[in-house]
């Protein structure tokens, strides 16, 4: 099946490593992505702050440009994904809006009726359409030894009724495990990276980024893997500023999930855009990426309970299974 591909503005430059690795991985896995001709910006979180109908019309132009033979449009950026998805949903549900948007599109010689088109996130397509089985059977160099914090950010899974749980998503965890990596328990995996706050209210943004980096570090992650250009940019390019602002010392490389997939598929680091990250991943990969699976974590020994234990009876902690 061919998917209409909406790259989004970041893929050209700030997230060019994402673009590189998507291209390389799609080719290896036989995923057919046809870029939408002459697409425009989705408006990010800025258009709706100023005007409503133009914000919908802006996104609808992209939906109108999708080749009529295709039924699925896929976005690798979570912000684009949510804008496309919500516009499609609003146009489907609201007749007046649909008529007004179509009226606006006509001014540019276009027309759009939301019917068959479904909007998907690239993670969803890779995990659920390509499938973990296909990916596993193509693995050349499993990601053994790497402890990875799977970071979804907010808009990959929210608002609700998307492809994964809105608070405790699992699809990226499952994918990384299928690649052979050790997935660390990362409670903040669907929390916000601050989005545009790095530009307009740095204190707020650095606070949010610090929580994420701290949580991933505390859980022993060697790497963070993301599915969104905004999340990658904030965690990676602003990590140094977070360190200076908060007096921390994080050195946590942040890669795109397609880079992790590509490495396991045996693709070359150059083809995957590795080295474009500001916090370099090279040392970690060299030091931790092993050819052998890491030994199963030792089960913590339960404390021996004495017969007449004077302490209050407490429920026993369930042991957490890794891997």
């Amino acid at each position, binding site marked *: 099946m061919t998917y209409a591909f909406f790259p989004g*503005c970041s893929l*050209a*430059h*700030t*997230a*060019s*490593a994402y673009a590189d690795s998507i291209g390389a991985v799609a080719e290896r896995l036989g995923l057919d992505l046809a870029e939408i001709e*002459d*697409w*425009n*910006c989705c*408006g*990010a*979180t*800025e*258009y*709706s*702050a*100023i*005007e*409503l*109908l*133009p914000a919908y*019309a*802006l996104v609808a*132009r992209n939906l109108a440009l999708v080749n009529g033979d295709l039924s699925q449009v896929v976005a690798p950026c979570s912000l684009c994904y949510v804008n496309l998805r919500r516009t499609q949903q*609003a146009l489907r549900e*609201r007749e007046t*809006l649909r008529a007004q*948007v179509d*009226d*606006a599109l006509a*001014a*540019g010689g*276009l027309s759009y009726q939301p019917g068959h088109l479904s909007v998907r996130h690239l993670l969803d397509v890779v995990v659920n359409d390509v499938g973990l089985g296909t990916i596993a059977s193509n693995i050349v160099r499993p990601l053994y030894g790497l402890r990875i914090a799977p970071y979804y950010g*907010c*808009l990959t899974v*929210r*608002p609700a009724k998307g492809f994964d749980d*809105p*608070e405790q998503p699992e699809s990226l965890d499952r994918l990384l495990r299928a690649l052979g990596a050790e997935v660390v328990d990362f409670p903040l995996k669907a*929390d*916000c990276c*601050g*989005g*545009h*706050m790095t*530009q*307009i209210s740095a*204190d*707020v943004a650095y606070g*949010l980024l610090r929580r994420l980096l701290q949580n991933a570090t505390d859980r022993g992650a060697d790497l963070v893997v993301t599915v969104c250009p905004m999340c990658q940019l904030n965690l990676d*390019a*602003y990590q*140094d*500023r977070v360190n200076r602002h908060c007096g921390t010392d994080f050195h946590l490389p942040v890669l795109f999930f397609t880079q992790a997939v590509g490495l396991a598929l045996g693709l070359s680091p150059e083809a995957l855009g590795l*080295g*474009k*990250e*500001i916090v370099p991943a090279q040392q970690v990969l060299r030091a931790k990426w092993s050819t052998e699976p890491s030994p199963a974590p030792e089960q913590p020994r339960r404390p021996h309970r004495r017969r007449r234990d004077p302490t209050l009876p407490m429920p026993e902690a369930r042991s957490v299974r890794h891997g």
Partner: protein
Amino acid sequence: MTKGNTRDPPSFPAEVMNAVLGGDALRRCFQCGACGGSCPSAADMNHSPSRLFAMIRAGLRNEVLRSNTPWYCVACYYCAVRCPQEIPITDLMYGLKRLSIQQGLCEEVDAADFSRTFIGSVERYGRSFELGLATRYHLTHRPLGLPKLAPTGLGMLLKGRMALRPHRIKDIKGLRAILSRARVLERVR
């Protein structure tokens, strides 16, 4: 909540609810506070979302539209997925931003200008242009902060992650025509 006489201007709560698709859900808020409790930037807001909703219903136009709350919303939708009354809180925050600008009550001038600068770049090129956006916005708003951010920008440039020139879509005329028609329709909405 709306007055019976149709010639009366809409009340403030009605105005807010009309500004957002599905905004009338605001009526259902029963002040549980799940929104504020889920919000990653609540600590920096001068009113929690639920308090802001109570203030809307009390008709406190000035206090609501001058509040920084919508501008500190990071649009992460945590509140929206946890709201037991299924109120589209994130959309309401966008709506409040629009109303506060339209009525000249917005006090978060920098944040509003950032959005405007972003939109300007989309109208000019059809795509966002980070370098243009960052320099234009920071030069006009916080020139003193620019040296602090410069190393981040330089690092991005050196890694080939920042375009020096914008990319303009082919049918920029068509896009502009669509947006200006949408603007006309929005006014009569």
